[in-house]
């Protein structure tokens, strides 16, 4: 892991050795499916977890289990310290200014719902507009639709082109004095497009419009720097970043979070309660009602350690070489059409094969031990845009290998055999 990205760039063997070393940290990769070695290419749905994450979570339950923020006893203090330590780790990992800007949530979906609900109640009214893009995941569409329904605001959508890139001029044209907030995916889960979010945020800020970035798919592939992006909100799910399910983070600029009302009410989010009046807690606790997913939070911390330990030059070189190898090989199979050919992509290749339905392809690949996602990927508007019901999606993580891409390609030929 000490090999630098530059060396790896020039040396296939070094890259291979680096990947094999990483694979050793993921016990599940030794599993067999239908008597075949598991080839896990569904990382955009959720990544596998390294040993360190598994043992951190088990260690918490074995040695530290207790509730946080409320006990004077030893275990509670220790658990609180561990959990709050993760908050600081996250702050540093995404380069937020303060831990008060790091709100623990269940995942990206809850983060977006929190903003749509709370920001919406404070700032969005009838006649206002919410702007998203044409490649959003349902979780960055539906919360805004609900908000619009509730308030009488309207949802505007910046279209994408045939490659699967946001048409920047159209995006810019849709920004106006009625626009209250913008929601954008950093990386598209259905197309793999890496959006130029920094530029788009800058465009929105020229109109003083805050921007929420859905970082669910960026987390595993890119180093995120919220202050460099200057985003107002950023949402992440730990389970797509080698961490556990049930935990994620909402980053929000302090000034904005302070101006927003609480999302849910309950314990932990209050300073004092009488039947007449409740005084809310400080940031970020104002947005964290109830006992959180403590073990998962601690697992998230271990996942962040794993991510921090990676040579990110190497990650980028490796993942791009997988993407390139898969895209090239798929393009060479007669009848395959790749959906999403943006100039900048990360970790995802979506495709269709003649008139063979993706669901059938998924079943046949599964028989070969190959896990891919088939369907609309919670992005039905994207499918509609391309006039297809579904795609097959292979998505990559640091531990995938060129051999696994070759297995995928052999699998597609197997599909062609069955559907001669």
């Amino acid at each position, binding site marked *: 892991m000490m090999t630098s990205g530059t060396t790896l760039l020039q040396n296939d063997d070094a890259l291979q050795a680096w990947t094999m070393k990483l694979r050793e940290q993921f016990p599940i990769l030794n599993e067999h499916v239908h008597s075949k070695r598991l080839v896990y290419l569904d990382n955009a749905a959720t990544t596998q977890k390294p040993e360190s994450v598994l043992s951190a979570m088990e260690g918490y339950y074995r040695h530290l289990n207790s509730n946080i923020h409320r006990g004077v006893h030893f275990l509670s203090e220790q658990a609180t310290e561990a959990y709050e330590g993760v908050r600081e780790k996250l702050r540093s990992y995404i380069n937020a200014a303060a831990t008060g800007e790091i709100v623990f949530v269940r995942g990206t979906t809850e983060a977006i719902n929190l903003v749509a609900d709370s920001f919406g109640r404070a700032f969005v009214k009838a006649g206002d507009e919410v702007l998203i893009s044409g490649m959003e995941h349902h979780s960055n569409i539906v919360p805004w639709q609900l908000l619009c329904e509730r308030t009488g605001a309207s949802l505007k959508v910046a279209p994408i082109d045939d490659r699967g890139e946001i048409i920047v001029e159209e995006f810019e044209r849709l920004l106006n004095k009625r626009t209250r907030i913008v929601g954008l995916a950093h990386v598209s889960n259905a197309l793999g497009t890496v959006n130029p979010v920094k530029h788009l945020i800058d465009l929105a800020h020229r109109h003083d419009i805050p921007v929420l970035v859905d970082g669910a798919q960026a987390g595993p592939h890119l180093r995120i720097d919220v202050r460099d992006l200057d985003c107002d909100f950023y949402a992440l799910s730990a389970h797509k970043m080698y961490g556990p399910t049930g935990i994620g983070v909402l980053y929000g600029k302090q000034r904005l979070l302070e101006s927003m009302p609480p999302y849910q009410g309950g314990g932990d989010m209050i300073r004092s309660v009488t039947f007449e009046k409740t005084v809310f807690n400080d940031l970020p606790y104002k947005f964290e009602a109830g006992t959180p997913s403590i073990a998962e939070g601690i697992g998230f911390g271990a996942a962040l350690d794993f991510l921090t330990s990676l040579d990110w030059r190497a990650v980028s070189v490796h993942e791009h070489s997988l993407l390139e190898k898969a895209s090239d090989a798929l393009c060479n199979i007669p009848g395959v059409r790749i959906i999403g050919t943006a100039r900048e992509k990360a970790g995802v290749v979506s495709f269709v094969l003649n008139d063979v339905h993706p*669901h059938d392809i998924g*079943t046949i690949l599964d*028989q070969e031990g190959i896990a891919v996602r088939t369907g609309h990927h919670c992005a039905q508007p994207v499918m509609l845009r391309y006039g297809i*019901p*579904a795609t097959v999606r292979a998505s990559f993580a640091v531990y995938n290998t060129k051999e696994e891409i070759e297995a995928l390609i052999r699998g597609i030929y197997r599909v062609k055999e069955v*559907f001669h």
Partner: protein
Amino acid sequence: MSDLRALYQEIILEHNKNPRNFKKMPEATRMLEGYNPLCGDHYTLYLKIVNDTIVDISFEGSGCAISKASASVMTTLLKGKTKAEAEKMFETFRLLVTGELKDMSFETLGKLGAFAGVSEFPARVKCASLAWHTMHNAIDAKTDVVSTE
């Protein structure tokens, strides 16, 4: 591969490629959509029912090979059957694809037998059953979109 061949029987592949009764039916007395949100299978089923008998049946739409072949085979089996006979066949089919059909030889199943392999693929049972569920709801005279979810 043997498991796959059990699922993708020649009959299924052939019906997928050349679905029978694959057309609109303007004179239908019942029309119902069947939709599987998980994989996007989406069909419209047309039935012409006279005096409790299915005198004509057709479908159109798109979806995976299993769902399309199942719909196609179903239309060939149900033409001329009474509603009660159709319901009985649906029950047989349901038991077959869920692996619960015990005491029936494959000969008596006829074309339905091609779907026996589905029971080994739990994720595909909904695909195979979509058209049948839609038919069942259609002859019950429900008029909403039928979803297998």
